[in-house]
Each structure stands twice: as C-alpha cells, then as structure tokens.
C-alpha cells in the first residue's frame, strides 16, 4: 500500500498550496471587505448597459 503515502503526499502538498493561497489572500487584504465585492459585481454591467442606450 505504498501508493497511499504518495497520494497522501500529493494531497498534503495540494492542501499546503491552498493554505499558501489562503494566507496570501488574508495578508494581501483579499478578505478585508466581505460585503462590497458581492454588490460590485452587480453594478458594473448595469452602468455599461446605460452607456449603450
């Protein structure tokens, strides 16, 4: 069952990669504002439409 150590290794490395990404997100302020991004995605297209009209 050696393969299981390889798979666990892969999974852990993958998890560590995601952990790194998570820390990056936290430290670079990605998650500082957890409200406006949800509103922002609604706004941009609407403005664009107005311009065309």
């Amino acid at each position: 069952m050696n393969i299981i150590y390889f798979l666990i290794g892969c999974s852990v490395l993958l998890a560590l990669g995601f952990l790194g990404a998570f820390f990056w997100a936290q430290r670079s302020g990605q998650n500082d504002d957890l409200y406006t991004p949800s509103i922002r995605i609604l706004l941009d297209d609407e403005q664009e439409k107005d311009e065309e009209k």
Partner: protein
Amino acid sequence: MQPENFYYDNKIVRNFGIATVVWGIIGMTVGLIIAIQLYHPGMNMGNQYTTYGRIRPLHTNAVIFAFVGNAIFMGVYYSLQRLLKARMFSDLLSKIHFWGWQLIIVSAVITLPLGITTSHEYAELEWPIDIAITLIWVVFGINMFGTIFKRRERHLYVAIWFYIATFITIAVLHVVNSFELPVSFLKSYMVYAGVQDALVQWWYGHNAVAFFLTTPYLGLMYYFLPKMANRPIYSYKLSILHFWALIFIYIWAGPHHLLYTTLPGWAQSLGVAFSVMLIAPSWGGMINGLLTLRGAWDKVRDNVILKFMVVALTAYGMATFEGPMLSLKQVNGIAHFSDWIIAHVHVGALGWNGFLTFGILYWLIPRIYRTDLYSKKMASFHFWIGTLGILFYAIPMYWAGFTQSLMLKEFTPEGMLKYPNFLETTLQILPMHIMRSIGGGMYLLGVIVMAYNLTRTALQGKLVADEAAQAMPLAPVQTIARENKWHRRLERKPIQMLVISLLVILVGTFVELMPTLTISSNIPTIAAVKPYTPLELQGRDLYIREGCVGCHSQTIRPFRSETERYGEYSKAGEFVYDHPFLWGSKRTGPDLAREGQKYGNAWHYNHLMDPRLMSPGSIMPNYDWLITQTLDTSLTGAKIAAMRKLGVPYPAGYENKANKDLDKQAREIADNLSKDHIKVKSDKEIIAIIAYLQRLGTDIKVSKTANK
C-alpha cells in the same frame, strides 16, 4: 489616472456555448441508447462499436468533459473577463484552448467505440490523448492566470477562487491518474496494480466529481445567480468560508468508493470521515445560493431562468446530502454496485450540472446577441419537461437499486440464498429501467427544444463579438517596492506563485514516487497467485476493450450474501498483477472475481455467442464478433516486456517465446471445445477471453485444496 478602454471577448464564449449544446445532445443521446440496451440488448444494432461496454464510457466522457467541460469554459470565459475587468490574456490561447478541447473530444468519440481504453472510469482515454489533455489544460491555465495577472480589479471575487482551485487540482489529479506505461501507440498499462491502482483511480474519480462537476459550477453559481436575480449573494463571508473548507476536505473522500474492498480499513474510515464532514461546506454553498433569492421568490415565479437555478441548487443539496450518507458503511453495503448510485449521480448531473448550464445559456446567449430570448414559452416547457425527466429518471432508479440489492441479500429461513440466480433480480427491475429511459428521453427532448430556442435567439440578434468596457487601471501597491522578503513579493505575482507551487508539487511527486516504483510493494503476496499466461493476458485486454468492467465487478465483499453467491471474499494479494485493476463499480451482471472453472469452456463459448442460449432473458449483448475476429498476437511480446517492467515476474526473455505458449494454450481450449462439437479455430479472440474468464479467482481455490 485615466480610465482605460478595452473589449470583452464574447466570441469565445459563444463558441464554447455552441459546443456545450452540441456535445450535450450527442452525449445524452448516447446515454439514452445505452439505457435502452439495458432492457433491449438489440439496441446495440448488432454492432460492436455501439455496444454498451464500449459506448458507456463515451456517454460519461461526453457529458462530463464535453458538455459540462465546454459549459465550464463558456461560463469562466464570460465571467472571468467581467470580474477582472480585462479581456482574456491571449485570443490565440483562447482559440487553441477551444479547438484543442474539441479535438480531444473528437478523439474520444473515435477511440472509445473502437475499444481503445485504459478502463479507468472517467479516465478511459489512452496515453497520447492524456498528454494532449495536459497540454490544453496548461493553455487554459496560462490564459486564466494571464488574465488574473493583468486584471483591473484588485479583489479576486469568490468565483475566481473556485476557478483557480479547479485548474490546479484537476491538473494534479489528471497527471497522477495517467501514469501509464505505453505498449504501443494506442495501448498502455497502468503503472500501479490491484488495490494500489484502485486507490489512485478513486482518489482521481471522486475528485473529478469534486473539482470538475462541483467547484467550477459553484464558481459559476456565485457569478451568474446574483446577476440573474440582480441581488448580491446572501453572504459573501459564507462563500469564502465554504470555499476554503470545501477544497481542504474534498480531496480525502475518494476511498469511500472502495468500502468493503481489500483497501486497508483505516484508509476506508479516513474516506468516510471526510465524506461526512463534506456535508457542511457543500450545504454552505446550497444555502448561500437559495437564500440569495430570499424576498425575491416572486421573481422565481415569472423568471424561468431562476427556476432552473432553484432546481439546480436543490439537486445539489440533495446529492451532497446523499453523498455523505452513501459513504456510511452500512448504507454503502446496500447501495454500492446498485442502480442507487446511478440515481445519485444523475440527480447531480441532470439537476445540478445540467440545469445550471441551461440557466446560464438562457441568460447569456440573448445577452451577447443583444436581443431577447426567442420564446419564453419554450424555455418554460424545457424547464418542466426537464424537471419531470429528472424525477422519472431518478425515482425508478432508486427503486431498482433498493429492490435488486435487497433481493441479492435475501436468505430463506433455511439459510439459503432466496434468489441464487442473479438474473432473477435483473428481470425484476427491468420495468424500472424502461421508466428510466423514458425520463432520460424527456430530459433530452427538453435540451433539443432549448437548442432550437437558442438558435432562433441567435438568428434574431447580432453577436457583439467585442463588447466595449471601461475601467480604471490597477493602482500599484506601494508596499511591493519596499518589501524585501522574497516570499511576500512572490505572493503578489500569481503566475510565478503558480509555477513555483507546481514545481514543489512535482518535486514532491517524484520524491514520493521513486521509492514506490523501485521498492517492491508491501502488499502481502500469496504464493499461489501467479502472473497471467500470455493467452490470458491477451484475453484480459479483450475484456478491457469490450468494457466488461462496466457491468461486471471483480471484487467480492466480505458479506455472507456475497461469499455464498460468488465464493471466498477477495484478498489484496490476488490483484498484485492486475495492471489495471478491474474491480468495477456497478453490478448490472454478477461479479466475476471467482468465475474461473465454474462453467465449462463450451458454456462460455455459447454464452458469449448469445447469452440467451444459456440464460434465457439475459440482457447481456451477443459478443459474436469474438468468434469471427482473429486475435492480434503481434503485441504479445511487448505486453509481456511491459508487464515485467512493472514488476510482474515473467522470466527474462520470456517475451520471445510467449506466443508459442499462447498458441499451445489456445489449441488446448479449441480441442476441448471440439469435444462439445464446437468447431472454432484456436486463433480466434473468443479463445483468449475464455482462457481469461476460466482463470479468474482460481489461484486461491488451488491453494485451498492444496492445504486440505
């Protein structure tokens, strides 16, 4: 700072959209054909290229990688540009990605009916296509990260995180599950054998569900649902939270596909524990989606697109509740190998993936064509017939799964199997299979109506191939220049970060892989278990070519109902020479792990020629072409050499005389058949497959009698 003008690329979105619809119809049509074959075997049109075993992988590959795959790319290319306020990184890469992906699908459509397959579920494509998939996936990755790199919006919206996780994880999974040793241009053997191969396959298999059918679709849901309802997601905080929880937990759940097999118990328990935990982040996504519509349910009443989204989210919630339940050993003991699993995956596939895709198509196509949907009535018809189709599909399959499993486990008061003949249980559930194909047909009809509706929509509008947009460029982050810590600087460069993390993963892979490949396995070997003879090996490859594994498992679980029916339960040591493993995941027919020597050669000959001669009412197709086709022995030597390279103890130089042994064994079987007045030349394919079937599970029986 001046706002910058740029254009969104809508043409690539449109192209992926067309591919989604076209492949969707093809993939579902193939699904309908094989569903009918399960009660009317003649639906294979007497043709080996359209027989269940070969085109069932075509159905799964077409709906997963062609229909859902193209839908993912359509949604990602549309939303990524707008979320990042930037055109895709490179139009050329977008084109290569699109055409490369379609070419891969076409190669699957050609090779799978020809029986060219690795037999790993959802990873059936042979090694040259695996390499092509890797290359195109990297193109997609460069294009996506390139766009992230030149973005005009600092914050990465949660949908993008889901896309990133999809890209990275699928890359790793695909590469690890494609470790094959090529024998020829279109034939290879899996590097791992037996239980190890099974673990790799289901580590991949479950995560293909997780990171191809789930995470990208959650990303799409987080962009398109708020857009459609014109209201923000219920809780952005929850979306971030459940994203991280989901990707950390999902990757460990694979072993729940191997409960009660010879996989070590602790690994099974690990899989179960993580599967049960998964319910929390999964439902986080469903609840977040449904609550986005709070106070807007009046919109759902009039808006058919939102109806599609509500059913999709509900189906997601049901499938992800059911998943953890199915991973509990007691439930799994009944559900595994049965139609219950087929119902489970189709609630996810038809409901979650299908309906979300339809919702996006109905929303997106009119938008990029600057027009309104051609017919809302038709869309509404599609919604209702699709929903009914799902119900007509799933409910009979749940019923069938329960019925058959319980029948197979039922004992008489005297302690005998109540239904010793497997076929009896099959015949019992045929009405449910007929219902299922009607449900599937309704669903397909809905998709065809959608295709017409969308075509008319496109014809009445005009594609805005390049949509004008305006945004402020990204203000440089002042801290970058001042910071000297290399890691902090690296973190701000997503591409470099990606390359380095992939390198780290690859280095880790090789560090871990090398000892595994060079040191012999610590699976307890059983002295009586011997490598396959050349003829049996060729027969096994025919078994793989015909896709027998699609209906017949080769692993006996330690239940009395199974050991009574099939024989001694399977041991890990029995599979050490099985490259690839052929345990299967569904018992449409009986298990074959101990099929060897149960019947005579003549029985197998007649049964393969026309199963109904030996088992009246059987739904197995005729394999009469095995009688007329001559066995190709040109690769025997290469196959033996490849197997030896993988650790199968064939003596050195055996590849040169393998064909001599093969001829000898084939003549013996042909002579034996002639005693039963069956005249067949010894060089026909059927001889090889009989040799293989007669070998199955016999090594252990031999040792048992030897002990007595």
